[in-house]
């Protein structure tokens, strides 16, 4: 009964139930369901539903964190199966994340990283108090598509500019999109420092990251 199974997988993500998500993934593997099919027909629709419900104010950040955890639990079962088959889940993109120099706040960044991972991005989190050069070095190492820079304080927000400058200096700016976020950050600020996009919250950051990966020449994007 694959349809019921996929519905249950979707629901396990919506419920934020990692044990159920894991159990369903194991049963799917045992019953011969293709791992990629389970992901695309069961779990990913769950994350999409979570995103929609969050946007509609029906789900909240702790619910989303739980959903992301459930997604991670399912992927922990399915990723090795994909590898066995010599394939892997199509990756949405590589993102290097960090909180800007002088700032040690990371709750927003963790939320963004969790949701990006849940939505198929490969995320490397550099942590807090990260200098621009470090962002650039990691972006080069991983051939990152996006660098995401968080700042909570008005005083440290200024250092987001340094990340853009470091990428320019490293000759990477044309290959890497920069998205910025954090409580004091605005679209205007993103424009001013030459970033490619600004997201108001974690869910918007996912939408923004997706849009940035699409190669379109547009002004600074704002995901709301």
């Amino acid at each position, binding site marked *: 009964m694959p349809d019921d199974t996929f519905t249950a997988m979707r629901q396990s993500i919506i419920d934020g139930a990692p044990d159920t998500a894991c159990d369903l993934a194991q049963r799917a593997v045992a019953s011969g369901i293709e791992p990629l099919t389970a992901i695309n027909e069961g779990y990913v629709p769950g994350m999409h539903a979570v995103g929609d419900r969050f946007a509609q*104010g029906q789900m909240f950040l702790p619910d989303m964190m739980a959903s992301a955890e459930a997604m991670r639990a399912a992927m922990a079962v399915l990723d090795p199966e994909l590898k066995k088959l010599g394939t892997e889940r199509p990756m949405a993109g590589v993102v290097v994340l960090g909180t800007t120099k002088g700032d*040690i706040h990371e*709750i927003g960044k963790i939320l963004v990283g969790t949701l990006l991972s849940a939505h198929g991005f490969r995320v490397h989190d550099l942590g807090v108090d990260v200098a621009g050069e470090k962002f650039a070095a990691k972006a080069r190492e991983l051939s990152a598509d996006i660098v995401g820079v968080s700042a909570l304080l*008005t005083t440290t927000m200024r250092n987001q500019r340094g990340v853009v400058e470091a990428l320019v200096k490293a000759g990477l700016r044309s290959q890497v999109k920069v998205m910025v976020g954090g409580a*004091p950050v605005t679209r*205007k600020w993103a424009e001013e420092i030459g970033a490619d996009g600004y997201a108001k919250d*974690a869910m918007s950051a996912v939408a923004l990251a997706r849009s940035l990966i699409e190669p379109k020449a547009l002004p600074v994007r704002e995901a709301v």
Partner: protein
Amino acid sequence: MRPRFELLDKPLIERILGEAFQLIEDPGVRVAPYVVELLRSAGVTVTEGVAHIPEALARSLLEPVPREFYLYDRRGKAAVHYGGDDIHFDPGSSCLNILDPETQQARPALAADLVRLVQVAEMLPQFAAQSTAMVCNDVPPEIGDWYRLLLVLWHSEKPVVTGAFSAASLHTLLELLAIESGGCEALRNKPRAVFDVCPSPPLNWSEFASQNLVDLARAGVPAEIVSMPLAGATAPVTLAGSVVQHAAECISGITIHQLAQPGAPIVWGGAPAIFDMRTGRTPMGAIETAMLDVACAEVGKYFGLPTHAYMVAGDGRMIDAQVGMESGMSTVLGALAGINMISGAGMLDFLACHSIEKLVMDAEAIASAQRLIGGIEPRSESLAVAAFAQTGLQGDFLKLKETRALFRKEQHFPSAIIDRGLASGPDSSQGILGRAQERVEELLAEYRRPEILADRERALLNFAETESGRVGLEGLPGITSPASASR
């Protein structure tokens, strides 16, 4: 009777403190290398940067903390009393943006904006203190923190709520204050400023914050702990749980501070907030944020310590009813809670933006709150019977001597910002923003720069020119030359 607002009873406060003392011992508090030896010398175990502070030690170090102290204005007058239930207000601090007075759109703040704000706050008696309210975007970031203080000292004689952006720059700010006060000893004896020092939630005294605590204690300049638990994100989701964390951060900060210099003045303060589970933002105008402020202050008052909170701010992005409602509610609650210094006036958009128009509006809310805590007093032997004896059932109270003698005590008269239908008042059809804009211009026109001794003014200028020259700043934005400044 002074009206009060309380959220915690004694058993709950003691339970909060019981858990706070437990937290500072286990899991302990992250501290910087700068204070490790200081803590170890007092018998605190510090392992891998985490201090495990015994309750007995922390309690013993709460004892020497002054239960009251004053901030002084330039003339040497005690202008702010930290202690008891006295309340004072100051504008919010360190904002990067301002609502442009003309367009009412947010834009980066400039030195000229800070000067306008300081001048307006100087004219409003509701603000007992100034704050280093904005970061000036036309000043190089390397000198951004002390330059704000310079502008405040230049244009104001009121006490200042300020803070350094780094461990090193604290000494530059202290140097400026010492110049203005006539030396370090004069500053110590009559401090003009209090310095906000922020632990990083949860339970982390960073290098910068640790060093500021110690250096302020040794300089004898008051420190104000600004603990910022975000309920549900960087602190437990329950309000009570966040109050516990706030208490643990304050107590551990006081431990470090008092070990550096027993008896140095310090304030139990904070800027706690809830974490909005829809957006991840921290609404300063939420009622739960105000509840956290009140409850955190109550715990400090339990020890009889001076208190501070961040209130009077709204989250809307323009001057509108939302911002007015949020700011007004928290102003009233802060006043009823008897919090010694209430910061935040003028701010909106989650503390991301300042507005001078909002500052003058907030001053009206503050004045109303000050009237509120005046309470209802029996002002004569007879409350009403004697008045009725004079007027009978005619009810002609307007003619009574008692009415004329007492109405000014009973009623607060707001400025023309508040539309009460005054015939001579501003055009009420323009709305409160228009009236606030007019009020700002009136206050600026009336402002006169307070006098400063010529040699100190010269010394301030010399200091500013030398230091700003190091980073290539040409001229001193916001500083008028002494000849033209002293009108």
